């Protein structure tokens, strides 16, 4: 069975929106479902009646009431109304709207003027009671040279300050490095001298030791020479 319910199918049929598939289902349902067939028949009948309905002219009525009823419209009626009722009289509203009708055009004109002023680079200056309006982005030569001079002065001052600071810093750094170098040199020379002296003392001590050894040998030799006689014979007593 299809997923279309009877109300849906009937609605589609009434609006003549049935697809071929839906039309098949619709026709099958008309054959198989008596209730649905009767509903379709009723819809056709009512549609026929509605199409054949001959309407006649509206009886005379007070159309003007739709204008002047605005003032005396009952408030209770308004309160009970489900729709959103704007209590403003449209004519009153339009009159109010006309009163401010100039505002959008003035607003537009002002916006356009502002855009033109920005695009043309208009400059307004008030100097000692004199109003000047200048168009274009180019400034006068004098103003430009003044501006350049002032910029250059500022730049020069800044550069000088920077150079003096740099020189000062460099001098300080040089002093520091010189003192460091001096300290280093002093320290290293002291150390070297100490090492030289140590070497010297060592050498002297060695020399002295050699001298002592030499002198000891000399003395021994002398001793031997003293205790030997002229013939070279050893004196006994002395030998013992």
């Amino acid at each position: 069975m299809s997923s279309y319910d009877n109300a849906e199918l009937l609605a589609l049929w009434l609006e003549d929106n049935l697809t071929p598939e839906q039309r098949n289902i619709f026709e099958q349902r008309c054959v198989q479902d008596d209730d649905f067939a009767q509903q379709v028949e009723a819809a056709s009948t009512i549609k026929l009646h509605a199409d054949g309905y001959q309407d006649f002219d509206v009886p005379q009525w007070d159309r003007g009431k739709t204008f002047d009823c605005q003032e005396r419209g009952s408030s209770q009626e308004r309160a009970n109304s489900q729709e959103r009722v704007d209590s403003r009289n449209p004519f009153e509203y339009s009159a109010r709207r006309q009163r401010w009708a100039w505002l959008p055009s003035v607003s537009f004109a002002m916006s356009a003027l502002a855009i033109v002023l920005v695009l043309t680079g208009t400059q307004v200056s008030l100097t000692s009671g004199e109003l000047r309006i200048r168009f274009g982005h180019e400034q006068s030569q004098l103003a430009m040279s003044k501006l350049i001079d002032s910029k250059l002065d500022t730049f020069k001052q800044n550069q000088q300050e920077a150079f003096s600071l740099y020189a000062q810093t460099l001098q300080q750094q040089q002093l520091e490095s010189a003192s460091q170098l001096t300290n280093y040199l002093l320290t290293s020379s002291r150390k070297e001298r100490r090492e030289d002296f140590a070497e010297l003392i060592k050498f002297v001590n060695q020399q002295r030791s050699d001298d002592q050894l030499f002198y000891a040998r000399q003395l021994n030799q002398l001793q031997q020479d003293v205790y030997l006689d002229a013939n070279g014979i050893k004196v006994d007593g002395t030998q013992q």
Partner: protein
Amino acid sequence: MFEKSDEQLIEKALKGQKKAWFSLLKRYEKPVYHYGLRMTGNNADALDLMQDVFISVFRNLSSYRNEGSFKGWLFRIAHYRCIEFYRRKRPQQGLDDAPEIPCTAQPAEQLIENTQRNAQLVSAMQQLPLAQKSVVELKFFGHFTFEEIAQQTGMSVNTAKSRLYGALAKLKTLMEVDYVEL
């Protein structure tokens, strides 16, 4: 020769031209009157409802934003005025309730000097609940789509479809009864 559009007439009416407003009113008074006639089943009530509708349209004319057709907007107001009319007349009756009090005023059938079928249909419609009656009215006489009906009446499309389906079953029975009585 050259008929002005609804939008042009509305614009002029908003500028204060009564003539434009009357032109707009004359263009739509007939469908609104007959809508009222079929919805109320009574000439006096139809005239009252029509006046109510046009007063409300006039008040809200400045809020019309050209979204959708003017006719659709007009009939939405007509629908709500009709609900209001029924509430005033029978405060306890719901939209889906069947009418309890038969219409005692001058029947519409007498005024509609048309075929007997018209009278039969209008008579049968008067016995439908308001919610079903408005869907039948807007679908068969107003020739609106279900989406438009849903927008105008504030119900969903599916509800509109099922209400029409339910209304058809009732109308069929009612018209059969009338036919037998006739």
